[in-house]
């Protein structure tokens, strides 16, 4: 069976300010695959996630990114999201004054509109959020609060997962999804993520530690150092890294 490529990154170079961070990066993620990117701190893992989502200030100097065959770099951040890219952020942003429900409803309907689906009315929206939220331990009270304001680390990550769950992206990037989570919270988040794995949706799991990969088991593991992938393997590579650390991949300075 031939695989359909979802995301194709070719010879990508990107910088933040004057600093070159991504250097000749290549990766292809096919439909249904879960790839893990592991690497030492400061290797540029988060930069990669921002380049993929189009954050201002992250400048692509050369290379190509195709998503579903389309030129991703030509799209605004919101267009990328509507096409099906989702970034589960390491540090979700607080939005004072904007109730979480309001925010979620705008997001869901923007994505639905793009897909040619009718916008959800309040009743159906509430129903959906309630159902998906239940599994993540998100109650009504929590989504009435302003987005992420006063949320604990665990609550923030659960809300990220809820967004992923209701937006149903084709390609999710999880940036250090386990940071700041205790083991119970981690399981809840992982269950939410795994529920989206249906053989078609793909994921890029960015993590420093192997721990998360016990719960979100990847098909491929890549070691990311000095701006590109230096080694690839299956899930056992993660275990090896856990044991040996990243020392052999980090250049002597």
């Amino acid at each position: 069976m031939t695989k359909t490529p979802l995301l194709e990154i070719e010879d990508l170079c990107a910088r933040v300010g004057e600093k070159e961070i991504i250097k000749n990066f290549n990766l292809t993620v096919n439909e249904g695959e879960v790839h893990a990117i592991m690497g030492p701190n400061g290797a540029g893992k988060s930069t990669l996630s921002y380049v993929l989502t189009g954050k201002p200030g992250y400048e692509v100097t050369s290379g190509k990114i195709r998503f579903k065959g389309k030129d991703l770099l030509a799209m605004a951040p919101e267009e990328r999201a509507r096409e099906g890219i989702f970034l589960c952020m390491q540090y979700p942003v607080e939005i004072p004054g904007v109730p979480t429900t309001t925010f979620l409803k705008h997001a869901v309907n923007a994505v639905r509109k793009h897909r040619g689906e009718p916008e959800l009315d309040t009743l159906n929206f509430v129903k959906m959020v309630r159902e998906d939220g239940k599994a993540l331990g998100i109650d009504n009270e929590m989504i009435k609060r302003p987005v992420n304001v006063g949320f604990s680390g665990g609550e923030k990550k659960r809300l990220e997962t809820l967004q992923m769950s209701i937006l149903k992206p084709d390609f999710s990037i999880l940036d250090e999804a386990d940071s700041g989570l205790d083991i119970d919270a981690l399981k809840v988040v992982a269950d939410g993520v795994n529920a989206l794995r249906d053989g078609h949706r793909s994921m890029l799991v960015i993590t420093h530690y192997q721990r998360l990969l016990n719960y979100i088991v990847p098909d491929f593991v890549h070691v990311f150092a000095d701006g590109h992938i230096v080694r690839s393997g299956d899930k056992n590579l993660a275990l090896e890294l856990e044991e040996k650390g990243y020392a052999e991949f980090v250049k002597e300075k």
Partner: protein
Amino acid sequence: MAGLIQDIKLFGEDIPWFQGLREKGMEAFRRQGVPTAKTEAWKYTKPRDLNADDFVMNDSAFLAEFEGAHEEEHSGCCHHHGENCHCHEEGCRCGEEIDVRVDLPFDGYQLHFLNGRFVPVYPVLPRGVEIMTLMEAVVTQEAKPYLGHLVDLEHYPFAALNTAYMEEGVYIRIDRNVKLDKPVILVNHTEADAENLFYNLRNLIVVESGAKAELIEWYNYTGAEKSRYFANVVNEIFVERGAELRHYKMQDEAFKANHVALNMARVRSDGFYDAFCLQRGANIGRNETKVLLKEEQAVAEVNAAYIMHGWATLDTTTDIEHLAPETFSHQLVRGVVGGDAKGVFQGKIHIAKHAVKTEGTQLHKALLLTDTAEIDVKPELEIFADDVKCSHGAASGELDEEILFYMQSRGIGREEAKQILIDAYLDDVINKVADVSVRAWLKDRAGA
């Protein structure tokens, strides 16, 4: 003759006490003249556009009506809605079925002004509420114990000018202990033919002891998008012992219009004056509120929001005078400024020498949407008493790019994301409006 001073005949010149007030107003205005950029109170809101030679005032509608009633037929259209008009001139709207009620998402006792003139259609009022034109209140002497008592002619040139031309406006009295069930709504509508119109409006509101009322003022327009007119409004407000007035204003004037308003309120013991003004539109829009907290336990809330683009200057000026011990005031003002527009906030809290155990707070925040948007803020505290709690604060900022990106990364378009954030920013102060349906309406207008 045109300009701000015009030789026009007004109704009531034969009533000495009233005409005397007008004359004092004119003298005071002539002494001060139109403020200039050098006038301290007007140094941020440049008043030059308010002093044009081509402004034209309405003829007196009251004189026309008065004369019309004495003649079999009068020539020329009276330009005034009334059943007694028989002029049959083309364009005369008199005698038409008058349906001025506007659809609002809340019920209330609506009163209408069209291009600065009162439309004599009265709502059916419950017992204990009196509404009449200011002229009627002058003729019957009802207005005499109140009119002009609060306005300091020497420091408010436009209020002095307003006093000189007092005629249009209403007198509203809520009797002792009456709790009004619905708001009184003053709809001030400007239509297409208002080019160069300069009008003065003087309202007198008396909320007697223990009474409760809500007053809504709405200034709007149709077809006057490009009209340059000047509305000069003074409200004199008396909140008596234990009374409560909630005063909500929506200033929605055309973008070339000028709107200067002074709200002068006096609050007696245990009285509560709760004001909120939302400003949009207008070339120059100034909403100035002065509150005299005259006796113990008098409370004032003076909140405002403004949202503007283009070249507007919108000005919120407040002056809260704590004249008795244990009086309380709170002010919250939020603005959103885009384009080349300018937001002005001048907020003063004055605490008199014997006004101990008093509390006065003030907070102004503005959101600047462009590099060319500007805000000018002047907080002033004058504290002559010990043992008081007083605070002021001001902050301005821009929309947070991190937040915008976060919202965009969820599929929300950048412009939509901005609007959500702006709405949320203003919600904070609009939520101070106690009347839930009015609050919803104001939010709707703010986002429109």
